């Protein structure tokens, strides 16, 4: 989780990612951010996020994103 938070903080230092739950709905993360995050996750965790997993439910909070990483790690 620490690594993920640091990836997110790098993009938007002004956001408290530990508590924010509407990163997509409130427009904090745009499509460029999403792609950068997916690439970083691939780099740091060795997990590929498939295109069909790019939906608001998976990117609205750091918690949801971390749950996605764990799910994908389990599948791989």
């Amino acid at each position, binding site marked *: 989780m620490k690594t993920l938070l640091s990836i997110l903080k790098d993009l938007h230092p002004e956001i408290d990612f530990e508590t924010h739950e509407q990163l997509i709905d409130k427009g904090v993360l745009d499509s*460029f951010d999403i792609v950068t995050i997916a690439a970083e996750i691939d780099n740091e965790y060795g997990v590929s996020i498939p295109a069909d997993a790019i939906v608001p439910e998976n990117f609205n909070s750091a918690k949801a994103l971390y749950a996605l990483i764990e799910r994908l790690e389990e599948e791989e």
Partner: protein
Amino acid sequence: MLFTSFDFIIFITLLFVMYYTVPKKYQWKLLLAFSYIFYFIAGPKFLFYILLTTGSTYVSGIKIGKLYEDQSLYLKANKELSREEKKAFKAKVKKRAWKWILGCLLLNFGILFFIKYINFTIANINWFIDRLNDRETLSFIDIALPLGISFYTFQTMGYIIDVYRGKYPPEKNFGKLALFVSFFPQLIQGPISRFDDLAKTLFRENSFNYNEFSFGLQRILWGYFKKLVIADRILVAVQTLIGDTAMYDGAYVFVLMVFYTVQLYCDFTGGIDITIGIAQILGIKVQENFIRPAFSKNIAEFWRRWHISLGTWFKEYLFYPLSIWKPMLNFSRFARSKFGDSIGKKLPVFLSAFVVWFITGAWHGASWNFIVWGLLNYIFLMGSEELKPFYSWFHSKFDVQGTLGFKLFQIARTNLLVSSIRLLDCYRDVPGTFKMVGSFFTKNNFNIFVDGSLLEIGLTSADYWVITGGLLLVLVVALIGRKGSVRELMAAKPVIVRRTAFYLLIMSILIFGAYGVGYESSQFIYNQF
């Protein structure tokens, strides 16, 4: 059949009466019949293409669906399999599904490419052959563009990708899929609907609902108002200014930029209003394609508000998959090791966005002016990404963010950028457009704004009054629309106010609509894309 023709009004009226008269279970079949009649009137030979797209997508969808069904049954029946064995089985199934979807995508995008881009490709090859001297050039192919092919191909390919991704099962009824592909109100200029979204109301049994009918009718009239009173009226001046570039340069280029923006906005949003309104009177919900784009404060926001269905399509089916494609990520890793983290990190975004905007440009038309237009959008978008640190610095020094003045500045800047690159769409010639834009800075003919020259480009002072009045109304409606539905707001007003507004709208279309003896309403601009 033009949306603005008398024939179309009869067509819609007939459909409407029959739709609510036939037993409800036949409603979607009636829609399918009317959609195919609409398509047949546009050109009987085009039916082949739309049927081929529908047929190939139907078969691929069914095959992929069957593979997934069998997979699910097999895994249920063999619960004792290890994780690795299950994974290997799933990978095998996915590989087989991939073959079906790949074939479907290649066939359909191949048809679109061949019909729409073959002569453009030949022209470019010939350009190279010319430079090699005395070689025989290739002949052009005489081929007509089927109605709405860019729209229905994208919509149908979106469906098959979703089926492949397992988002929903394939449609098993061929007729229903055929209706989704050919639903006539959105065939001409979109929106590019998603199957799971449109299917909810397209195939259901709809009862007549007075409120939906009333709202739909108002939406149709509002669309006709924008198209006939504003867009088709200002079109005359747009054509005049484009028609004689030697005469209409300098300040006229600015006039053209403003007029074309007005025309395109009213033409495209008006057409979509008519589409959504027709669907609504039939009880069908078609997604919105615009959210007051003229109020956008930057280009990225503009593209989230303008032609939304196309932007979403490219984002979900091309930008995301391409950006996180394994070879792209490997390339990014390689670039990180060579050029450092900051460049390596951005590469997938920059490369994918380039591809997306190149194709977005080409989607609008098979010529370089559209491609350059797409790439200029790309440059603006990437430029503003790169300028983010500067913006942060600026706002830390000057406390203007959120002030009305700064917001208006941002809106004006965005509209100026978006409108200026649309001039490529007007002149249809890249060097010619840049020359004309250059003339704005070099030729001093700004007196045209005061010496009556603007009354000699096909518009009388009465036309200007009508256009100005119409645009003010569009602006007021857009401003009110920010707080909620204008039609719902009107519905809460006393009957006398509603009726008066309704009849005034009809009368203004009849009186101020751009038609008369010998007048022929123009086709929608987006129809040509």
